[in-house]
Structure formats: C-alpha cells, structure tokens
C-alpha cells in the first residue's frame, strides 16, 4: 500500500462499533484529570521548561498511551501523577481530589526492575497489602490470586534474581494491581525487554486489563506499542514539552497481532510518526555523510 493512500480516519467515521465504544468511554466517570500541568526547573540560574499546558482527562477503564520523543517530559508526567515529582503549575485530580504525594491509589510499574530483591515473588506482591494493614493470611491469599493471573504461581517462592526480565515485570504488574489502584501508571515498562518478550507482554497486559477494573496511563516511545495498546494516544512534543494531539485509536478491539498490517493501524502509525519524526525541512539533526572509501557498485 502506498503511504499517500493512508489517512487516519476519524473515529466517528469508523464502524459503528468503534464510534459506539468511544461514546461509551466518554460517558464513564473521569478518574484522572490533569489540568494545565507545568513542570520547570532551574539549573545554573536558567529556567528550563520540561513541559507546559498539559491537560488530559482519563475515563474509567480507559487505556491511555503517552508517546513523544525523548525530552518531551512524558516520564515526568507519569511521575507527577504518581506523586514522586512535584509540578510547578496546574493540578492533578484523582477522582476530583488533588494529588499531593505518592499513594497506593496510583500504582506504578517502572522501566527498571524494582522488585524487592530480598523478598520472594509472593512477598513482593504482598508488600502493598501489608502496607495497607492487611493480615498476613489475607495478603497471602490475595497475592496468590494475582500471581495466578499473571501466570507465575509456580514461582511464588522464587527470588527476583531467579526470574527473567519479562517475568519480573509481570510480578511488578501483579504487585501494583494487588493494591487495587484507581489508575495504573506504567513508565516504559517493557522498554528493557527484547522484542519478542515485549510483544508477549503487550498481549498479556491487554488480557489482564480486560479482567481487572483498572485505568492505565502507559508511557512509551514505541509507536507500534502505543497503537496496539491504547484507546487514546497523547502525543507530546519536545522543546518545550507540550501536547501535540490526543488521538482516538480507531483500531478495533479485541486487538491481535494481525492488526499490525490493517489500514487503520498503519494510518495511525503514520500519523504518530509525522509528529515524532517530522520529515519536513528544518531538521538540523541530520548526520553529514562523507564518503570515506569508494564503495563498489553492489554496495548501497
């Protein structure tokens, strides 16, 4: 298919099923409301703006992806929602209440492996429940259920260092979900995994999300990942960080790997790419190509 034939159809032009889906999502209550969020910091007396004027509303059980080139502040956005960083302007409302610091109502899965190495897999999942004052027996029973959901029951007594990267992140998801957070924040959780495992994890995450009443804010720089996972995609630009577009994903659910070649998927990907890697002039980032040796005709 020639790329010029691709255009992103508005979700309202899509099949009635897709249009209906977005109508239903928008009818749900707003879980997370980010209003005119601004983050800046001072270094050597110069004020740097990470991003400004970022607003978004996330409805219950919605899956939102945030994409953007490095430096647009997408991770900072997740960290401010989590309460790990402070904003310098605007506000974050969770169920209408301003966020002031980290709390168990906002679970987070990080890019690095953050399982507690001194605790077994089961004890890791129990951690949040114990912090919430649950008794050992209740926490253990619940942890077992969550481990069952991520398919790691057999490894409940293993230590994190005995697990592969993908398994560690599954435990991290189980650990975050065991707290029954209102929103699950995921900061490039699969970025460190190899491509094959990453694909498995994406499928897996959708399976879990389908079974659990949880809203997801997923940060990624992988456009295909965003197109595969999200209901809506927040595209951020850098220098200074800002919202470029908030795109409704027209790819119908349930999602499966075959859709990677569907017209909707390709059109969405192209639209995202235009934001992230603008091909137009004014790109000063090119590498000067100097021919060092005479390459043969058969070498490109």
């Amino acid at each position, binding site marked *: 298919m020639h790329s010029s034939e691709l255009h992103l159809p508005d979700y309202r032009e899509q099949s009635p099923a897709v249009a209906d889906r977005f109508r239903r999502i928008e009818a749900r209550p707003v879980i997370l409301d980010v209003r005119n969020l601004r983050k800046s910091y001072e270094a050597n007396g110069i004020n740097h703006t990470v991003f400004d004027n970022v607003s978004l509303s996330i409805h219950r059980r919605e899956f939102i992806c945030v994409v953007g080139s490095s430096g647009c502040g997408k991770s900072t956005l997740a960290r401010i929602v989590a309460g790990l960083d402070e904003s310098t302007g605007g506000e974050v409302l969770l169920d209408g209440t301003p966020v002031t610091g*980290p709390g*168990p109502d906002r679970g987070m899965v990080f890019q690095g492996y953050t399982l*507690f190495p001194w605790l077994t897999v089961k004890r890791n999942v129990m951690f949040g429940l114990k*912090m919430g004052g649950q008794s050992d027996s209740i926490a253990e029973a619940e942890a077992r259920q969550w481990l069952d959901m991520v398919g790691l029951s*057999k490894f409940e007594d293993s230590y994190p*260092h005995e697990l592969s990267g993908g398994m560690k992140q599954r435990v*991290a998801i189980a650990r975050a979900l065991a707290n029954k957070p209102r929103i699950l924040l995921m900061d490039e959780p699969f970025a460190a995994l190899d491509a094959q495992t990453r694909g498995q994890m994406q*499928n897996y995450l959708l*399976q879990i999300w389908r079974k659990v009443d949880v809203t997801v804010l997923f940060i990624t720089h992988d456009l295909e990942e965003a197109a595969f996972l999200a209901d809506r995609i927040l595209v951020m630009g850098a220098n200074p960080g800002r919202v470029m577009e908030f795109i409704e994903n027209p790819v119908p*659910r349930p999602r499966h790997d075959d859709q990677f070649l569907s017209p909707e998927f390709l059109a969405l990907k192209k639209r995202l790419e235009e934001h992230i890697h603008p091909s137009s002039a004014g790109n000063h980032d090119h590498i000067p190509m100097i021919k060092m040796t005479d390459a043969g005709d058969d070498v490109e």
Partner: protein
Amino acid sequence: MAHHDWLGLKKELPPRRRLLLTVLSFVIPIAIWSVVSYVPWIWHPLIHITNPGEVDYFSEGLDIPKADFTKELGKAKAAGQQLPEGYAVNPVYLPAPHKVAAAFYTAFKTPPRLPNEPWLHESLGHSIRTIVLGFLISSLIGVPLGILCGTYRFFARLQEPFIEFFRYLPAPAFGALCVAVLGIEDAPKVAIIVIGTFFQQVLIIANSVRKTDPALIEAAQTLGASRWKLVSRVIIPASITDIYTDMRILLGWAWTYLIVAEVIGTMSGITLFINQQARYRNFDNVYAAIAMIGIIGVSTDMFLSWLGGNLFPWKRNTRSSVKKLSLFNQGPRKRLSGGLQSGTTPGN
C-alpha cells in the same frame, strides 16, 4: 585459546585452578621458608657448637657467627689443641617450619613460667573477649547511627563532618587518656578498639545505606509505604547485605587494633603471650601465636561468609574480604527460564 589462558583479563578461572592457586598462595611462602631453613648453604650464618674443644669461650649449645668459628678453628689447629665441633644453623628467631608446626600443639602445653601468668588458651580467650566486647559496643551505637546518617541528610550533615575529622585521629593516641580515665585493666583496651572501629563504622555503613537504589524507595512509596515503613521495610533490608559485609571488614580492622590495645595499661592477652615467649626466646611459640591470630581471623570471616549466604538467600554472592578463600557459596545459580504460563492468544 581461552581454555589454556591462565592470565585472562577479568576472567574468572575454573574452580580447580582457583583451588590450586589458593593452595599455592600458602605453599609458596612456606616452601621459601623451608628452603631457607633446611638447605644449609642458603643462609645458616651461625655455627651451633656441639663440642667446644679447647676454645675457652665456646660452650656446648652456643651459637657462634661462622667467621668467628672458622678463626678459632684455625687457631686451634695451629696450636694442636682439641678442635671445636658444630653445625651450621639459622638464628634462633627463624625457627624451622616443623618446629613452628609443633608449637601449635606444644605452645598450649607450655606452662607459664610464673604462677600468675596465663596459659596460651587463656591469653587467646582474653584477646577474643576484648575484641568482641569492643566491637559490640561500637556496633551498638555505630550501626544505628550509620543507618540514620545514610537515610536522612539531616543526620549526615549533623554528624559526618565531625566523625570524618575524628577518624583521622589514630586510636593509639588515646591510649594514655584511656588509661587515665578507665584504669589499667581491660576497660582502656576495649575503649581503644571502640575508638578504632566506631568512626569508620558510622561512615562506611552510612555510605552503604546511601547506596540503596532510589527506584526501590519510589516503588515502595507508590505501594503505600509510609515514612517509617520505608526505613524498616525498604532501606534497611536493601542495604543489610552490604552492612553485613562492612561488619566483616570492620571486624578484621578491630583485630589490627588489638595488639596496640593490649600494650596499653597492663599488657594482656595474646600480646602478653607473644612478648613473654620472645623474651624466653621461644620463637617457635611466637610464630605459632602470630599465625593463630591469622587463622582465627580468616576462619571467623569464612564462617561469617557462610552464615551470610544462609541469612540472605537472595544474595548468595556476598562480597568477600577474603575472596580467594571463599570457595564455597559459589554453587551454580539456576536461572529460571521465562515464558508465559497460560496461553498467549490475544485477548481484548
């Protein structure tokens, strides 16, 4: 070929080679010592007189420099006197390996010359008691303070600059002061070990605690851990293996302060034993006693390393202060393979 490479840069050697080299690291110095002791022409600067002959200042059992013996032998020959006899020996302060080996047993059997002097086992017991007491007192304050300084910038700023200054003051410098304040018995000795250990301990443990991965703290915060729980459930468990290793190294340092501590006030413990035996020229006992300190130190550390492996099953590879000797605790680590348990058919 990698297989034959004994000198690969930063490459671990196979277990059998490691064991071989560990054994060699002890065999080589002992071999050099044996050669010097048993091969007469290597050194042996003295002649041990077995028969003084008619040389008037020779007597049986006396050690005489070789040159003097040769001179007297020449004189006796010229005068037609009865010739002195003897054989080449090393000085008394270099006993042969078998004598020192025997002393490991006989030193315990050698009764003290004076009735109120301690036996070797009593001396060793006294030294161990001094070390343990000093180390315990230091740790009781030093470990919590180190954790506090490592956790909170407030305490680090309040404590560490002074401690940094104080740790440069050599502990033995406080000897006279300790005796003046604490008397001449064991108290000042324990105090020297405390002074030598405590200040390093606070700084080293604070540093280990400070190395806690901030991502673990943030993860715990998003799981609802409160201020105090962050310390007790995250920061302390995250740094406990490093603290344990620090304690092992610090215990080794405490031993180095022991000898200094024991000469303060009334000399006591293994230092007293070594000094007495040297005075009686029982150098085999002196060497045995010195070697015993090393053996106690290394075996304590090996035991603590083994214990650490059992206390902290998530970290079987605790850093070792005597890495070459820690041949155990290195069993093959199984890495469980990944893979989803249930089907991967796409849903939703």
